[in-house]
């Protein structure tokens, strides 16, 4: 019942979201699209952090591999601007997965802070490539992707594009949810809780983590494709460490291990950064304050808020029950 209720709640929010946003002005639509793309990236981080317990600081690598692939194909070969868009999506996911498969060989054997450092270093390698490989990536200037695909559906329309990204988000959410509930997802959780015990039980924990890493890479590649077309600019800025950190913070903010938590985190970060920043110059303090308060009081992230509230309510009810007896 509880599980069903959660699913219903998320579905309701998604429907409301899909209904409200297209009726807002085009900047809000664009902002929501950007937030959704990052929500997909955040979910890929969540697979690692929330289920396998691996905090990755290199997720921007797969994101940018997807984004650069899209941008290069679109500008140099005019490829991916029609029906072949779907081919690009597939290619980017494959390339993201392949990159992750390669990086995973180095990273997955490490745990804790070492895993953090290795993924960070590998992510910076991709940044270095993007910055230095001038002939391919156009260096610091980046690549401008001026048109979006048009395959009957004209994605140059902000609202149409929003719905496409929204659809990608929903499908990814569903797919990852199914994955998380599968025996594979369960054994990942087992690894997160106690890897040694899982190994004793006969699970190949390294392989489980390696596969999770590759899946996260593929999802990262997908978000990269969408980002290239959302933003219209792919530059080393896209690959920079802050992108990885942002994605990680979004997950922590929303609640790791919940999948939708990343989406909530992404909505808040984008809302504050792109919206509050236009109203007040001290928006960074607000964002910082929210991070600090969340980590202090809501270790499960914002998704843990209802449980936390219930806890407080029960605790205070308990106290009230005790109070008359004491007096």
């Amino acid at each position, binding site marked *: 019942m509880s599980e069903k209720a959660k699913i219903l709640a998320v579905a309701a929010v998604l429907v409301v979201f899909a209904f409200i946003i297209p009726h807002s002005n085009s900047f809000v639509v664009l902002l929501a699209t950007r937030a959704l793309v990052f929500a997909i990236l955040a979910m890929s981080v969540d697979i690692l952090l929330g289920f396998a317990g691996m905090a990755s600081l290199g997720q921007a690598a797969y994101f940018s591999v997807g984004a650069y692939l899209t941008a290069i194909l679109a500008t140099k070969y005019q490829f991916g601007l029609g029906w072949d868009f779907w081919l690009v999506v597939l290619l980017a996911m494959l390339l993201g997965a392949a990159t992750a498969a390669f990086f995973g060989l180095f990273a997955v054997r490490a745990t804790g802070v070492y895993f953090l450092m290795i993924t960070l270093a590998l992510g910076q390698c991709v940044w270095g490539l993007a910055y230095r490989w001038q002939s391919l990536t156009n260096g610091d200037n980046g690549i401008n992707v001026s048109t979006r695909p048009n395959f009957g559906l004209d994605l140059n329309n902000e609202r149409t594009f929003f719905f496409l990204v929204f659809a990608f988000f929903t499908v990814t959410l569903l797919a990852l949810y199914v994955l998380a509930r599968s025996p594979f997802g369960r054994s990942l959780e087992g690894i997160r809780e106690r890897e040694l015990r899982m190994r004793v039980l006969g699970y190949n924990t390294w392989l489980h983590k390696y596969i999770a890493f590759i899946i996260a890479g593929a999802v990262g590649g997908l978000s990269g494709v969408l980002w290239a077309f959302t933003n*219209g600019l792919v530059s080393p800025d896209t690959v920079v460490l802050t992108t990885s950190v942002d994605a990680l913070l979004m997950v922590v903010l929303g609640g790791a291990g919940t999948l939708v938590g990343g989406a909530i985190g992404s*909505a808040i970060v*984008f809302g504050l950064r792109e919206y509050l920043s236009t109203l007040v110059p001290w928006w960074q303090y607000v964002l910082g304050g929210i991070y600090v308060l969340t980590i202090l009081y809501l270790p499960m992230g914002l998704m843990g808020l209802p449980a936390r509230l219930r806890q407080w309510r029960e605790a205070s009810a308990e106290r009230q029950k005790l109070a008359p007896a004491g007096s």
Partner: protein
Amino acid sequence: MTSKITSRTSVALLAICLGFATGLAPAAAAQQELRIGLLSPITGFLSQTGQDMTHGFQLYLDQHNGILGGAKVNLIVEDTTGKPDEAVAKAKKLVLQNHVDMFIGGVLASTGYALAPVSTELKTVYISSIAAADDLTQRQLSKYPYFIRTTWTSSLPNHPLGQWACDQGYKKAVVIATDYAFGYESAGGFQKAFEDCGGKVIQKIWPPLGNKDFGPFIPTIKSDADVIYSLQVGPAAPQFPKQLREAGVKLPIVAGGTSYDDYNLPYDSQVVAGDVSALMYSAALQTPKAEAFVKAFRSKYGQIPGYYAEANYTTAQMIDEAIAKSGGKFPGPEQFLQNMVSLKIDAARGPVSFDDMRNPIENVYIRKVEKTTLLGDSKPALWNVVIKTYPNVGQFWTYGKDKFLQQPVYSRDFPPCKYCE
């Protein structure tokens, strides 16, 4: 259980809608006002630059009671944090949300290359007051019909500097420039003119953008050079000469103007005295217009205006005159750009007009850092004293438009370093 559902739903709803709720309110509709967006790096490593830009524009507005060319101005300043990605997002916000008539700014050349396509896509005027990316008003101009530049291309003041350095009898130069488009184009302009006149660039060093420690680079500078060409941006500008002199290198420096921006000079020790740089502005210009600007800026903000301030002050002046030509109304992007390019204005930096590729033609000043007393001050201070003026310099220098456009845009590899070993 129902209460649990509702509480979960409402929490999630609240969180998701939080960021967008304010966006649903329709933008306040006001008639007869000129909406201008200013994209400036208020936070991040270029924050000092961003502040100067905003101050420059604001000063002109305040001097004219917030009215440009008869239209009431609604100035909306947005923070780009010095990143092209963020600048694109904010530019789109300005156009889609605030319905600005034009957006101005962007600092880095890479930001310029990122913003110009936005102007084409959204059919909105983009005035680049700082971002100097050469190709926007050269080989790529046709792609950007709503783009105009009010200050410079990166290579514009560096062509005369190359000529000047050669005229001083320097034969071998080492180039140390920031590793991105602006660095390539500035250094390229210098190298082209310097080598065409008979000089040789014997080494090129490219420290990354945002670099603050030149320790690893200075020892590699070849000792048989007789001049250093330096091009630094932001916090690297005061750092480079300091570390260079501390390391005991005594070679003279000729530099791109951003390396010796006027607002930096008071904080620099005596080490920079004697260094030469080229730019289309100096706070030490002794024309009535320039002195009045420096005095007004200093009394309001308590510091000397650098070129970032002057560029935006003058941009405001250009908008003022262009709007006045259409009788106090924004005449639509096409007509507005026509008004702009036909301007001949008397700016703080000197006379400015436009070429047929929407780029300014203006004076370039060779400036030497000297301790002197200006503006009736009581104490001497460091100033960029003008030692030579090249009048009416355009982006093609003496090469001619057609011939210049046949060569590729200046890059890390062009002009090739023929004399490097």
